[in-house]
């Protein structure tokens, strides 16, 4: 078996090469003990098994970043046979900086000169053979995006296994004596690598290497200081300069630039995209288009996906025990509750799929670094980073998003403090699932100003996220490590279809996993808390009496017809009723074309019942019974609804809701609101269903859900404003909290991420409600005031100086004196 380590700088197309040679059999894990992803793949060639491990992309091979440490430990501990170094052909000089360091290790290296097509397009003529001679290793040209070069690379790997390592040496001139001295100190019980490489790394001050060579550390420290004094350059700067000089030499000897000085397509595009006056409008336009497309088209797609979900629901109902008039078995209730919870979330999948695909396109094209470049100055003021853009956008920058993939996307942020701040502020962005909730409340209490309120809500969240980030970075996160913002702006290139689809599905899968696991788990708990202890014996008796009365009246009506005998038992009537409801549910979620099939199905299954469900034109008696049946169905629904309300009121959750009332009343929340919030913790999508059903009063009124709520709840627009404010600030859902724990690696932060927003939300809501009641503000006024305060606070905080950089790279006396 041949073990290959795949190394390369970021943006060199390493992943594409990885996919190219290892095919589809990939395995993703984590490097031991850290949150760095380890991707490996296996394939066979001419009887040999080859395992390829994709090392994290790094610009250098020192040990200053976690990724570099991980890569180095892998090479030292796992001892791969060959290193394949992917180099961006259009960016050879900088890429060689890493190549040199890899060549010095002492293991065979195969250089893959990737993106040859881009280099050709830029008019670069590259003498591949010459580079191979100068590097003393095989160099394979390739174009990963075009799928070219696979055979050559694999061939080179096979050959490298049998070819002995050709020593590659850069003459470090003034440093050579020191290198030799250090080499002498390294004994044979050191790790398996070239002694020269170990010596160079030790002189560089590489922490991973020095850990393994304790004796060497003390000895050379003095020598390094001597070198610095003698040549006015520390060892690291010296080495870097020599390496870049060598890279320069190789570059000029093997590359001819035919179009030097000519503007590339990227330059022209950047001229517009980064233009002082056009950049922001373009940015907003792009974000707007993304949301518009994903929401409008995604919604159209749900027309096709909903029937599938509905069919699933009907299937579940079908296999659950039948209801016996108003006695619905708990299993059935439970099954329906679970399916509803899952369906509510799954219905969003088309929208998220399109949203994530569009964002993946943006990432692939190379727009993200430009976004970071444009926004860095603003984000910096709040303790965030230009790279926080993607997570915030995924979390919902405009109309909506999902915090789960948003937080997962913070993986790439180098600056530790900004990363933590981003993780803790993404949850404040517009959670898509909260939107139906807002719509319900806005429709009920703010119908006239709905557009304005929605605008407030969507835009307030970004400011709130910024404020929270600022507060956190100046208090609890003050001491975290920050990093310099040195970011490459790679050339634009066309996105690959495979890459986009893969990433979009990856993120949607993350969303589905959250549904499948956490949401369902919490939903189970909530079901128990909403159902138990159940109706009191008194209530049960009362409802039974009413049910009996309804049945009796039905029997009486049926008796007047010739069908009376067959419809005189509870069993037969229940059967009829259940079939009727089932039929109607299936017809609802089917297209008109399928209606015929459904009818035929039912005719075959239950011909007797169908007589009354779809009475023939000439059978007046059947029609009478049909009318009675419809009334019976409605009445039953009414009773079930009342039973449900009673159950909720006396349930565990209801009890908790009521016991919180003394505190929540300051925010204007009564126990019903408390219950709705608590029960939607599993997934905010279910807040509407719970709230809606609590207020549904189907008896005599002919009102829409919003109208019903407006009239029956006794709330004022001010109440609604407070409720909306609270909803704005509370954390999206349990799934988000779990992801926070995953990314921060600590339960402490997860708990913080739960209780801090809830407290903040509650205080804000209470403040607005109590002040509003005192001053007699209307709902809109109160909310506008809240909005205004948020903006003012954000602007104020932005103007406060950011705590000075924690990395010790600040000013030196000499440079200050000079100017």
């Amino acid at each position, binding site marked *: 078996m041949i073990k290959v380590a795949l190394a390369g700088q970021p943006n060199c197309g390493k992943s594409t090469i990885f996919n190219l040679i290892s095919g589809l059999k990939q395995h993703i894990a984590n490097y031991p003990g850290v949150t760095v992803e380890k991707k490996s793949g296996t394939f066979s060639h001419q009887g040999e098994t080859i395992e390829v491990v994709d090392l994290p992309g790094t*610009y*250098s091979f*020192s040990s*200053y970043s976690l990724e570099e440490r991980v890569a180095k430990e892998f090479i030292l501990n796992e001892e791969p046979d060959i290193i394949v170094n992917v180099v961006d052909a*259009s*960016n*050879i*000089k*900088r890429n060689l*900086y890493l190549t040199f360091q890899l060549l010095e290790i002492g293991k065979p290296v195969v250089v893959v000169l990737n993106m040859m097509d881009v280099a050709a397009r830029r008019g670069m003529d590259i003498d591949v053979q010459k580079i191979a001679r100068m590097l003393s290793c095989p160099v394979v040209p390739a174009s990963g995006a075009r799928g070219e070069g696979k055979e050559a690379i694999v061939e080179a790997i096979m050959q490298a296994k049998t070819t002995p390592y050709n020593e590659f040496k850069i003459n470090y001139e003034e440093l050579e004596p020191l290198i030799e001295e250090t080499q002498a100190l390294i004994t044979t019980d050191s790790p398996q690598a070239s002694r020269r490489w170990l010596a160079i790394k030790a002189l560089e001050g590489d922490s991973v290497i020095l850990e393994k060579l304790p004796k060497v550390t003390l000895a050379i420290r003095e020598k390094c200081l001597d070198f610095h004094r003698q040549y006015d*350059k520390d060892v*690291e*700067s010296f080495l*870097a*300069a020599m390496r*870049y*000089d060598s*890279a320069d030499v190789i570059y000029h000897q093997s590359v001819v630039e035919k179009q030097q000085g000519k503007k590339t397509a*990227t330059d022209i595009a*950047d001229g517009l995209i*980064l*233009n*002082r*006056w056009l*950049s*922001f409008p373009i940015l907003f336009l792009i974000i707007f288009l993304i949301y518009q497309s994903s929401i409008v088209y995604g919604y159209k797609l749900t027309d096709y996906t909903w029937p599938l979900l509905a069919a699933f629901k009907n299937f579940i109902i079908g296999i659950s025990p039948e209801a016996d008039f108003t006695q619905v078995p708990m299993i059935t209730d439970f099954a329906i509750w679970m399916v509803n919870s899952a369906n509510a979330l799954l219905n969003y999948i088309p929208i998220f799929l399109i949203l994530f695909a569009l964002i993946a396109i943006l990432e692939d094209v190379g727009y993200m*670094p430009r976004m*970071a*470049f*444009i926004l*860095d*100055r*603003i984000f*910096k003021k709040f303790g965030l980073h*230009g790279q926080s853009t993607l997570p915030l956008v995924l979390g919902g920058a405009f109309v909506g998003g999902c915090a789960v993939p948003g937080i997962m996307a913070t993986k790439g942020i180098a600056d530790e403090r900004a990363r933590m701040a981003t993780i803790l502020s993404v949850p404040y962005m517009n959670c898509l699932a909260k939107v139906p909730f807002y719509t319900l409340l806005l429709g009920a209490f703010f119908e006239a100003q709905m557009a304005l309120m929605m605008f407030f809500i969507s835009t307030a969240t970004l400011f709130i996220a910024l404020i929270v980030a600022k507060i956190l970075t100046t208090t609890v996160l003050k001491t975290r490590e920050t*990093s*310099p*913002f*040195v*970011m*490459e*702006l*790679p*050339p634009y290139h066309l996105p690959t279809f495979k890459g986009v689809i893969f990433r979009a599905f990856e993120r949607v899968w993350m969303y589905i996993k959250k549904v499948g696991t956490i949401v369902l788990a919490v939903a189970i708990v909530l079901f128990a808390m909403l159902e138990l202890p159940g109706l009191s014996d008194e209530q049960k008796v009362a409802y039974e009496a009413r049910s009996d009365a309804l049945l009796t009246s039905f029997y009486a009506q049926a008796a007047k017809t010739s069908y009376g005998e067959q419809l005189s038992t509870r069993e037969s009537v229940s059967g009829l009723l259940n079939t009727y409801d089932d039929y109607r549910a299936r017809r609802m979620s089917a297209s008109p074309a399928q209606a015929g099939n459904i009818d035929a199905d039912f005719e075959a299954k239950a011909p007797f019942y169908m007589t009354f469900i779809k009475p023939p034109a000439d059978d007046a008696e059947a029609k009478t019974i049909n009318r009675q049946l419809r009334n019976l169905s409605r009445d039953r629904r009414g009773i079930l609804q009342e039973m449900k309300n009673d159950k909720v009121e006396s349930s565990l959750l209801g009890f908790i809701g009521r016991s919180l009332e003394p505190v929540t009343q300051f925010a204007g929340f009564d126990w019903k609101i408390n219950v709705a919030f608590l029960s939607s913790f599993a997934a905010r999508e279910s807040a509407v269903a719970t709230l809606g059903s609590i207020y549904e009063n189907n008896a005599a009124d002919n009102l829409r859900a919003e109208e019903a709520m407006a009239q029956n709840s006794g709330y004022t627009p001010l109440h609604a404003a407070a409720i909306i404010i609270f909803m704005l600030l509370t954390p999206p859902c349990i799934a988000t909290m779990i992801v926070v724990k995953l990314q921060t690696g600590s339960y402490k932060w997860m708990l913080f991420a739960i209780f801090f927003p809830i407290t903040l939300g509650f205080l804000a809501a209470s403040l607005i409600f109590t002040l509003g009641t005192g001053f007699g503000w209307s709902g809109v006024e109160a909310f506008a005031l809240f909005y205004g305060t948020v903006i003012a606070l954000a602007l104020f905080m932005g103007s406060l100086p950011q705590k000075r*950089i924690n*990395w*010790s*790279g*600040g*000013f*030196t006396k*000499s*440079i200050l004196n*000079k*100017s």
Partner: protein
Amino acid sequence: MCLDELASGTLCRIIKVHAHDALKYKLLDMGFVSGAQVSVVREAPLYDPMELKIHNYLLSLRKSEAKLVEVELV
């Protein structure tokens, strides 16, 4: 003079990098070595950071970090 003072379109050569630790290593890795040529492409729309071209690729650097790079005009 320092890199952050230069206007868009200027070409310069690096004399010395006066940074320490994390920033220094990062700059070295990215090619900010003595003698390397850097050209200033533009400032961000909000005047910070700066976009630079060095060793044939494009890079973004905050002005507070660019201040630590001593350069001379070419």
